[in-house]
């Protein structure tokens, strides 16, 4: 085994070289060589003592909205400029205990509000596959960090597809665990009932390892689930993919509309055929309320965000507008300067839908429809379907600046947002390329059925082999 400290040193160097867009990609927003080396030394001595460390010395990058010590946690927002958290997220603590070393914070859409990493106060990240294109978002920095080879594992966060969509755009694996599987303590809240920390990784295997290390009940998060963490699977014994015999995979009609890019459809067909060849039973299913997911999401998420972002008021941390005449002026100036346009748009939207007289028409109704969307999944999974397969996004990565209409941008999450609304786990993995750009295929599973999801994803990954990247 190579010296852990050397590995981390190289990794930090790679990240630092790319920081502030020096590489032109603008993936990394913070590094701290001293802290990372110190952490590596600690891992090395623990490893020497024989501590169980599945990720001993593995460098990881972390999205800028997950609280870490030693590096700023700014959510790519001016309102948290320079803010360093005095505590770290439970997920980070668990990964560090497993031997991982945080080497960098990654760029993101401001407060995770966006699908292209273009709303970042640090400026947009470019897609390593094609620098003219967006890496997706909001965890664009984390997906790009893996795609660019800075790290093999990077944490992201999901509210409506913010790990899976950039993973698909950058050609890496992206996981959103079941709501409650991973503690949210230390993840800066956007839409609390939807948020989950997720993983971007080079392979399904690495994504699975990181997910399970982070998982489990956390007394600091009342919404974390008291569900046993699945045991780590033994490393694959052979190159032959696992059999999917006995696994029923549903193809929801609503995710394969006539308007779907034919080449994306063709890659999906290829993945379906691969699963069939592995023994899976393929069935056509319907999730009839899918079309309502985006409108419902854009009521619930902004509503929760408008409240979650109220704490950024300039009183206790973050920059405060100077020389304000009174309290109200201080609030207005601090928040108007601190938040970017998209964040302000969503705060306003959320404030509106929660307002007296509008609550029933919007928020309450959206929650009712969310329940219908959830039931779509429950009923499909209750009818003998184990997993669902869909394209992760309707199109491959779009060009930076190409999507200017917010609604059009929101629609890029159309296939991912349903898993967040229903709270179920989902994974995106590369299933091929279209016009040279990666295409992601998505597997969705029932609540806490990550073991089957990872098993199938790894089998599919293995079956597609290099084809997934061509």
């Amino acid at each position: 085994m190579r010296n852990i400290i050397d590995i981390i040193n190289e990794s930090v160097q790679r990240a630092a070289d790319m920081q502030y867009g020096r590489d032109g990609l603008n993936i990394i927003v913070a590094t701290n060589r001293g802290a990372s080396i110190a952490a590596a030394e600690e891992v090395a001595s623990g490893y020497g003592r024989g501590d169980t460390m599945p990720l001993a010395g593995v460098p990881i990058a972390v999205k800028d909205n997950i609280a870490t010590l030693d590096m700023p946690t700014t959510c790519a927002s001016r309102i948290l400029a320079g803010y360093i958290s005095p505590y770290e997220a439970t997920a980070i603590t668990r990964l560090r205990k497993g031997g991982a070393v945080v080497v960098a914070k990654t760029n993101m859409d401001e407060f995770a509000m966006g699908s292209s990493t273009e709303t970042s106060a640090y400026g947009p990240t470019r897609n390593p596959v094609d620098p003219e294109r967006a890496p997706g978002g909001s965890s664009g920095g984390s997906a790009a960090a893996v795609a660019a080879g800075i790290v093999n594992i990077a944490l992201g966060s999901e509210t409506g597809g913010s790990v899976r969509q950039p993973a698909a755009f950058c050609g890496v694996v992206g996981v959103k665990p079941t709501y409650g599987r991973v503690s949210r303590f230390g993840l800066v809240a956007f839409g609390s009932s939807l948020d989950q920390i997720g993983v971007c990784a080079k392979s399904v295997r690495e994504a699975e390892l990181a997910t399970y290390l982070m998982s489990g009940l956390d007394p600091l998060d009342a919404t974390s689930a008291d569900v046993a963490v699945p045991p780590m699977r033994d490393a694959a014994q052979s190159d032959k993919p696992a059999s999917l015999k006995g696994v029923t995979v549903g193809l929801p009609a609503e995710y394969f509309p006539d308007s779907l890019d034919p080449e994306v459809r063709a890659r999906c067909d290829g993945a379906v055929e691969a699963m069939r060849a592995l023994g899976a039973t393929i069935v056509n299913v319907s999730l009839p309320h899918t079309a309502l997911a985006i409108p419902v999401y854009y009521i619930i998420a902004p509503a929760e965000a408008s409240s979650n972002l109220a704490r950024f008021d300039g009183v206790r941390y973050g920059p405060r507008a100077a020389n304000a005449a009174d309290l109200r002026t201080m609030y207005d100036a601090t928040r108007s300067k601190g938040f970017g346009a998209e964040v302000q748009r969503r705060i306003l939207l959320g404030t509106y839908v929660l307002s007296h007289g509008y609550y029933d028409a919007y928020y309450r109704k959206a929650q009712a429809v969310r329940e219908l969307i959830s039931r779509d999944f429950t009923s499909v999974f209750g009818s003998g379907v184990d997993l669902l397969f869909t394209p992760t996004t309707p199109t491959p990565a779009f060009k930076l600046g190409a999507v200017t209409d917010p609604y059009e941008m929101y629609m890029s999450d159309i296939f991912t947002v349903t898993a967040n609304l229903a709270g179920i786990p989902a994974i995106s993995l590369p299933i091929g390329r279209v016009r040279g750009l990666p295409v992601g295929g998505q597997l969705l599973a029932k609540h806490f059925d990550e073991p089957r999801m990872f098993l199938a994803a790894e089998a599919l990954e293995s079956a597609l082999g290099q084809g997934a990247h061509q």
Partner: protein
Amino acid sequence: MTDWSKKYEMVVGLEVHVQLKTRSKAFCACSADFGAPPNVNTCPVCLALPGALPVLNAEAVLLAVRAAIALGFSVNLKSVFARKNYFYPDLPKGYQISQYDQPLAVQGTLHARIPGETATRAIAITRLHMEEDAGKSVHDRYPHMTAIDLNRAGVPLVEIVSEPDMRSAAEAGAYLRTLKQILEYADVSDVSMEEGSLRVDANVSARLHGESKLGTKTEVKNVNSFSAVERSLQSEFERQCEMLDRGENILQQTMIWDASSGTVRPARSKEESQDYRYFPEPDLPALILKPAFVKKVESDLPELPQKMRERFRSEFGIADAELDAVTADPRIAAYFEGVARAHGDGGHAARWVMGEVAAALNESATRIQDFPIRAPQLAELLDMIRDGKLSHTAAKAVFANMRSTGKTAPVIAAELSVTQVGDDSQLEQWIDEVLAELPAEAARFRGGEKKLTGVLVGAVMKKSKGRADPKKVNALLGKYSS
């Protein structure tokens, strides 16, 4: 001044915030103690640092449920936390975690005891819900600046909302005193208005007698004692009556009580009415209570004042006025019960507890739990009085000595040589000596002048240095009179 109550009726509803006496805050592990240096009892959760999440304190739930049961509420097995959104510097999250459309408890009744009346007045209480306190804004500490102390931020509260069921300031006062007493007995809060662990907002309106529609109400705030609540309600009622009588409309607004002038004034009007944008708190699952838990809280509930009164009445046979006095405070009641049990004469015990003991506590600003004379020791003193071993005067002296030395009554009585003498031969000897020393009075007394008895008893008492049993001396003297 016009007596408006002849023409108009006062209608009052009260919202009472009560701090639960938990060790830690409602949603984090910080100490809920009062009086620490500013911002010492804080953590990422109650400072609302980015990424921090609330976790419900089980002890707060226990105390809230206990309060609800003590107040006769029906406890909801499912209640839901909600966010009440508003901006203020001492509200770190920009919202207060509260409960809104699914509160912890609904439909209670409070039987308010109105002083001087035997019957109680039933006042409907609408709801009891859990919430967290805000921090404190300190405006007078630094010039041109406001300082924020977040020690109190996140301390658990229950809010208890009554129906507009009270018809006078006295009734409102009675409601508050009874509420405080019940919560004290239930041992859920310090219920101190001075320390802010009990806060009152009063909604008040006026209407013509016989009118069934409610008038426009105002909310009276900034009141820091029960008597101030009564005075502020009266003052606001009169202001409203004067306006109504002039044909003016009442403006629905918040009134601030100014204790120094004894008047209310309108709060600085807000630019727009506050919209709190309540919605279910996504960070906390619904609070689900098991029926067995609620039952357990109910069966573990300490005895409440009403029940204790009835028990004391039948067990010790004491009168209403004394019952009120000894049951006003649960610790006094427990002390009284200890004395009455050990001594046997409840009336005697009540007179001493509310007399000498209360005066001593008051004079030394001591709490009953810190009072040096414990219940069995006081009972021993009362036994000696009953058995004729101490005169009332001597007993007071012994009591004072017990307070300062901590010794028992018999020991002190012996040390002070104040044990009452009831022995006939000794008493007769003193009587003989007195009659010999006062020959003129003796002659008149023997001649049948009964009114001299007092003088002679007094002389015997003096001779005995107060130790003679005056009743016995009195009886014995009879033999000397013709």
